[in-house]
């Protein structure tokens, strides 16, 4: 396949209907969802734009963290007292009631920390699909990034302009994070 050029179509925030329409047009023009990426200043659900659902591992990472936290808590509760047994009051060496508190806290800590780590890792890990950015996005514009074959450029431009989009050619990948 020939080298694809990345375009960005910017819609004003009130033109959300047009943006959704534009995506359908692109689909019609044979540009698949894989080559389209929507960037926006506020979240629009996939439903609104007629896009396939995104997919993320955050839930699983969070769960894994929770399990890890639970295991650490179990070690602290039931392992460490055995390493150096010290009796306090008439409590057993590894009483259940107190261990529940520690277990809860550490499980939650594991869950929350790993959720964040999940976000972080997924954000900085390489993503596929067109990259590109325009500061207008944070001003509320809805940007549709897509890459299509060069021969379709004309058609696409016409179609998008009809919908009121401001089209940027050949958007450069911007280095937004070190």
């Amino acid at each position: 396949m020939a080298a694809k050029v990345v375009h960005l179509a910017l819609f004003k925030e009130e033109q959300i209907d047009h943006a959704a329409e534009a995506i359908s047009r692109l689909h019609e023009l044979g540009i698949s969802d894989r080559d389209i990426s929507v960037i926006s200043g506020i979240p629009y659900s996939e439903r609104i734009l007629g896009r396939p659902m995104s997919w993320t591992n955050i839930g699983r990472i969070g769960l894994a963290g929770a399990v890890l936290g639970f295991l650490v808590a179990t070690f602290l509760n039931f392992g460490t007292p055995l390493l150096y047994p010290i009796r306090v009051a008439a409590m057993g060496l590894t009483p259940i009631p107190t261990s529940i508190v520690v277990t809860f806290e550490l499980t939650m800590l594991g869950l929350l920390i790993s959720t964040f780590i999940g976000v972080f890792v997924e954000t900085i890990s390489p993503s596929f699909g067109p990259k590109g950015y325009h500061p207008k996005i944070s001003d509320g514009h809805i940007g549709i990034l897509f890459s299509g074959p060069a021969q379709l450029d004309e058609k696409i431009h016409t179609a998008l302009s009809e919908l009121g989009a401001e089209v940027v050619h050949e958007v450069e990948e911007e280095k937004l994070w070190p």
Partner: protein
Amino acid sequence: MAAETNLLQAVKPAEHAEEDPREHLMFDPRPREEMNRMVMEAMTTTTRRYWIWLIALGLGVAVLLFGAWGNMILTGIGVAGVRRPIFWGVFIVTFVFWIGISHAGTFVSAILRVFKAEFRRPFTRAAELMTTFGLAAGALYPLIHLGRVWVFYWMIPYPNARWLWPNFRSPLVWDFLAITTYLLSSTIYLYLPLVPDLAMARDRTKGWRHTIYKLLALGWRGTEAEWYRLRKAINIFAFAIIPVMFSVHTIVSWDFAVGMVAGWHSTIFGPYFIVGAILSGVAAVVTILFVLRNTMKHFDYFIRVEHFDALGKLLLVFSMAWAYFFFNEYLLSWYGGDAAVKQVLTLHATGPAAWVWYTMLICNVAIPWLTLWNKTIRRTPWAMFIITLLINVGMYAERYTIIPLTLGHQRSPFDWGVYNPQWTEISIALGTLCLFMFLYLAASRLIPLVPVWEVQEGQMAHTLRKVGKAEVPSVTELEE
């Protein structure tokens, strides 16, 4: 503005003199660009007064907090007023106070988010910042009050040379774990929704700010995948942080409740502390919103009378809930007949420091109940400012009653004691107040205090729908 007002008047039917939906932020949309500009301006505008305050508070932190603390480390904890049998004093009172304040952010941000209370949108960040900084101020106290702070790390869960770990049966270790969890998670919870706004700020700044925002925005572009991840993470946090929040103050209450101290050993303490914490936290949010509204540019747009009104209602509910638990404590001890507990509770009201007890009741019950039912008062920001300050005075008095005053009147009258807070303690308590305000003041010019994207998202979902002759406010469910 004038044009809009006219427009509103034109639309407003004369016979419906009641509240206009456009008084609500959600029904008073502004273009994203304008809103960005307003927030950025608010963030970058610093007046002379601002710098004076910032420097004064910085000095306050240096002298009142670290100066007094340093002196106490060098001479001994005896410069504080603790004595037998009152081994915990102002430090622990203030600790509980700050941890209580820190419940506001989570409550406003997480609980209201989970229940989709739309009025929360403009001030979730302001509240979350309170959580983080309140915790930062509060978490100092377990260190400050230590007799030997230089060996504080012995409490951290790691083994010593003989493979002796800390005692996980001690509520103080639970405290350590809970506060660590809460501090980390609330900081992340502050940070996650901040990322899109940081990207916004990144796009509008140059120089050192740009560098910082670029770094912190993690390369945010706003792709669907990013939004999806963020939403997912925020959802996980919103649901998970609520039980953590409950656990934190419950564990703080267990510091007292698991003990043998008469007046502490009560199952009611967990919820009692949580309700008190939310009362004091929400009150502090109102206090801060008043200050923000009056000092920061454009904030009168974001923070509106409706917010004071809504938070006022919440405060009234929590004040009642607090009173309910307070009554519970007295009823049960009165009915149960444990002489020691009864004596402690009676002495709170009749002992040498009964004024603290009365302050607590007046500020926590009488004042909210007498004022907050009234819509006009709820919608008068300065009145709310004063009321919420008083509520926090009352909550401080509550903690003071629970800690030193209870410890001072235990089972053996021979060993009763009167606790006198000393200058060091007052200075350190004020010092952490300075720390909190300093951090808040600094943060107010470093991060966008209003979650622009959340406000925009909300405004998008809110419309005025014409039903017959009326324009009815309606909300579209855009989120899943």
